[in-house]
């Protein structure tokens, strides 16, 4: 039989390459494994990946290519919100199921018929952080975020929801992903009256530099990061300065600390083991997003017993109780992500490792 | 009537007085030569007159109009045109195109008609090409009609500058060492060119170290030294001036 064709646009190079790279590796590893095990519906799975370098325009052309030339049955990808948004209209117009790996909530709100996503939204991350702050009695915070897509959208979402937690943002600073030093911004935050915590939204080396500079300035309040730093690389780069940093993260980063009753435990433990054995590098939650996307897609194809696009779409929407690396996923016609806030755990970094903190 | 008046003109470069308090006039229709030792300020004077430099002080009047401070292209529109001692050829163009640029002011150079290639633009341009070919023949560049400027020898480039300046159809033509790089026979050809230009009513201001040329064709000569006027008069007068002889000509000049 013809293979099942999965198309993927990922930011394998460029500023978001540390999202796209693990995503690509993950997809390739599991597709290979699934084929070894006989494929899906008795058909082989074929993966076609194009690197968009993080550019929306390239993402759009490559998506067209996947749909028109490669005639894929389903799309996974869009490592970033911008590339996802660029590809999204094509999926809608051509009626191809599309599972995005990007964070921003605009991807699934309002709901688009053919578009789904696996990562937690930036809004959820913000809510998780703010409720943790609220619990600890924090009412005034400083925000610092990077001016690229993820940080910018995270900041905007944070500002939208922060009020409802009774928290006031008294400083709101921006940095560029490649700035060598952000002590100026942090000094401004430090000097803002009454700051009780600082929240950084960003990924890549930026948050590591923020963390180091934070320590350098001896700022004595807690530092919160977003789920954008939920990879060991962050701890490696910022070193000791990460001590005490708190962030929302999927269970994947702390598989051993999950209670035995947690249904996620076996899934994340196995994924972490597979990934780290195959690539000799630490697993990141981004790799997990790709894993979840692939599993959801293949499960839906299995249930649809065909690659008929409409049927597959319907089955993805019916995904229910799927246990993934990101949490429990139950989608519905009004929720194309299907993760509940409980999918996030609050973790704290202690002695260079993640520690579950609730 | 005098076409050009230079009054108390000075130019200083960080302490060097290249031209200092210089006053002289050029009569319409004359061939007026400027001579003087190397570094006397002749080229600087040309640059001041044609607007390439702005004077430190003093003024320049062209057709009794104050022109110091004006841009070179404005002066070109008033009827000044020149050649350069350090060649300013458009090496990215053909020889004949260099000359055609010289005719720029006399062409339809409005933007929209050019963009739309209206017939009158192309017609005028074709005529211009023929006219410029004629000028090239006139200065002795007949065999370079199809040449790229970049492939021409030095002497030919000097002539090309003359043709380009002529294409502007100036009232006053300033030539900075037109015979440099030409041998005696070739210089005599340029003599003829200059004389013909002058007899057509164009005033010529000439800087040249070829005394045979200068003494042979000038109506009037101004000699400079250290930026100041050393002597002035007819060729015979200047040649006999002992200061000019000792500063510039030498005994066997």
């Amino acid at each position: 039989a013809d293979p099942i064709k999965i198309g993927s646009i990922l930011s394998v190079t460029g500023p978001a390459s540390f999202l796209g790279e693990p995503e690509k590796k993950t997809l390739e590893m599991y597709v290979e494994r699934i084929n070894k095990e006989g494929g899906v519906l008795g058909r082989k799975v074929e993966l076609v990946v194009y690197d968009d370098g993080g550019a929306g325009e390239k993402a759009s052309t490559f998506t067209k290519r996947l749909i028109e030339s490669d005639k894929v049955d389903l799309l996974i990808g869009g490592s970033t919100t911008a590339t996802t948004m660029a590809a999204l209209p094509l999926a809608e117009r051509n009626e191809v199921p599309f599972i995005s790996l990007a964070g921003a909530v605009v991807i699934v709100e309002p709901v688009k018929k053919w578009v789904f996503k696996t990562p937690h939204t930036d809004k959820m991350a913000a809510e998780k952080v703010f409720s943790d702050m609220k619990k600890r009695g924090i009412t005034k915070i400083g925000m610092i975020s990077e001016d690229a897509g993820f940080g910018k959208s995270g900041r905007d979402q944070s500002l939208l929801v922060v009020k409802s937690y009774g928290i006031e943002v008294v400083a709101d600073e921006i940095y560029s992903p490649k700035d060598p030093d952000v002590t100026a911004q942090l000094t401004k935050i430090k000097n803002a009256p009454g700051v009780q915590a600082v929240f950084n939204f960003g990924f890549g080396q930026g948050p590591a530099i923020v963390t180091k500079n934070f320590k350098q300035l001896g700022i004595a309040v807690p530092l919160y990061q977003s789920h954008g730093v939920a990879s060991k690389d962050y701890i490696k780069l910022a070193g000791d300065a990460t001590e005490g940093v708190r962030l929302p993260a999927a269970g994947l980063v702390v598989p051993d600390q999950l209670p035995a009753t947690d249904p996620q435990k076996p899934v994340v433990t196995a994924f972490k083991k597979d990934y780290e054995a195959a690539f000799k590098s630490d697993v990141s939650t981004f790799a997990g997003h790709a894993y979840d996307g692939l599993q959801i897609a293949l499960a839906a194809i299995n249930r649809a017993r065909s690659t008929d696009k409409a049927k597959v779409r319907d089955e993805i929407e019916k995904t229910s109780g799927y246990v993934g690396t990101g949490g429990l996923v139950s989608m519905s016609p009004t929720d194309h992500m299907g993760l509940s806030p409980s999918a996030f755990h609050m973790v704290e970094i202690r002695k260079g490792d993640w520690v579950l903190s609730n | 009537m005098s076409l050009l008046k230079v009054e108390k003109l000075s130019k200083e470069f960080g302490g060097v007085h290249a031209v200092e308090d210089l006053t002289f006039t050029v009569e319409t229709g004359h061939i007026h030569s400027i001579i003087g030792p190397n570094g006397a300020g002749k080229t600087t004077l040309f640059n001041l007159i044609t607007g390439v430099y702005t004077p430190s002080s003093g003024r320049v009047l062209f057709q009794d109009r104050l022109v110091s401070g004006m841009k070179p292209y404005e002066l070109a529109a008033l009827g000044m045109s020149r050649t350069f001692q350090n060649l300013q050829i458009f090496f990215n163009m053909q020889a004949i195109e260099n000359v055609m640029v010289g005719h720029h002011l006399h062409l339809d150079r409005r933007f929209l008609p050019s963009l739309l290639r209206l017939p009158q633009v192309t017609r005028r341009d074709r005529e211009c090409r023929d006219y410029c070919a004629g000028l090239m023949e006139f200065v002795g560049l007949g065999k370079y009609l199809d040449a790229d400027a970049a492939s021409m020898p030095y002497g030919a480039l000097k002539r090309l500058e003359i043709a380009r300046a002529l294409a502007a159809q100036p009232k006053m033509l300033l030539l900075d060492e037109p015979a440099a790089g030409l041998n005696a026979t070739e210089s005599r050809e340029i003599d003829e060119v200059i004389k013909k230009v002058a007899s057509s009513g164009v005033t010529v201001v000439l800087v040249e170290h070829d005394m045979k040329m200068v003494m042979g064709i000038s109506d009037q000569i101004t000699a400079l030294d250290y930026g100041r006027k050393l002597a002035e008069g007819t060729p015979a007068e200047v040649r006999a001036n002992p200061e000019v002889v000792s500063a510039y000509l030498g005994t066997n000049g």
Partner: protein
Amino acid sequence: MNLMTARTGGLAALAIVVAVAPVGFSNSYFYDVGVNAMFNAIVCVGLNLLIGYAGQISLGHAGFFALGAYGSGILTERYGVPAIVALTLSAAVVGILAFAVARPILKLKGHYLAMATLGIGIIIHIVLKTEAGITGGPDGMSLGNFKMLGFTIKGDQMWYWVTGVLLIFAVWLSLNLIESPVGRALRAVHGSEVGAEVVGVDTSSYKVLVFVVSAVFASVVGSLFAHKNGFITPDIGSFFGSVHFVTMVVLGGMASVYGAVVGAVILTLLPQLLAVVEQYEAMILGVIMMGTMIFMPKGLLPSLMIKLKSREAGR
């Protein structure tokens, strides 16, 4: 006479290539790539007037491209302005902006000019990224089809033909200009500014003129691109975009209208061709760029022409 035939011949050849290329297009993805190639080609034809003919470098033209795109996006989406009006208004604004910055900027030479134009491009990029309230920020903004007089340009095929006609028109305009006294003056500016000035060429005005013209070219294409793609991000105005345009011009051949087209087409197609070699893409692209410039230092088209000519003469 000779000129006439070379001219009409060239335009006819371009028209034939545009018309015949779709024979090999098996689906709309090919049309899409074709349209992008021609968009880039039009920008490069304009940019080549500035870089190739007038000899003034610009590392900021992606900024003008992005302004055109966002101008159209914002005006049509947020204010309901008809697409053609939005395109025109954006082009006018870009033209005015280019005019305003041109005079001081174009006094600079060489790398200093490159720096200044780079700065302008980057400032535009930062504004587009930061003013999220209007532009949608780094995540970009969506916009609708290009509607004009009750007629909608949609679908890659229709875009292909519209862009093809525009490309031919742009090439025609550009050829007209450079073969006119204005174009000759521009090339003279490249050769020697003083030399041009003393025969009456107002060099700074010409530089400003060509800067504005090339910026408007970029803006118009930016507007069309935005409608065609339906989604734009500030990154279309990034420094890389500008470098990319310049690379196309130089690779294809400076001071060659068709060279700019060839350069644009090649550099648009290459990433599509190289996508299959995955991680080696960058290395191969780099080698191709270096190799082309080493073996064809005047750019693809002019160098090929010289080789052809000398072969003919050799016979």
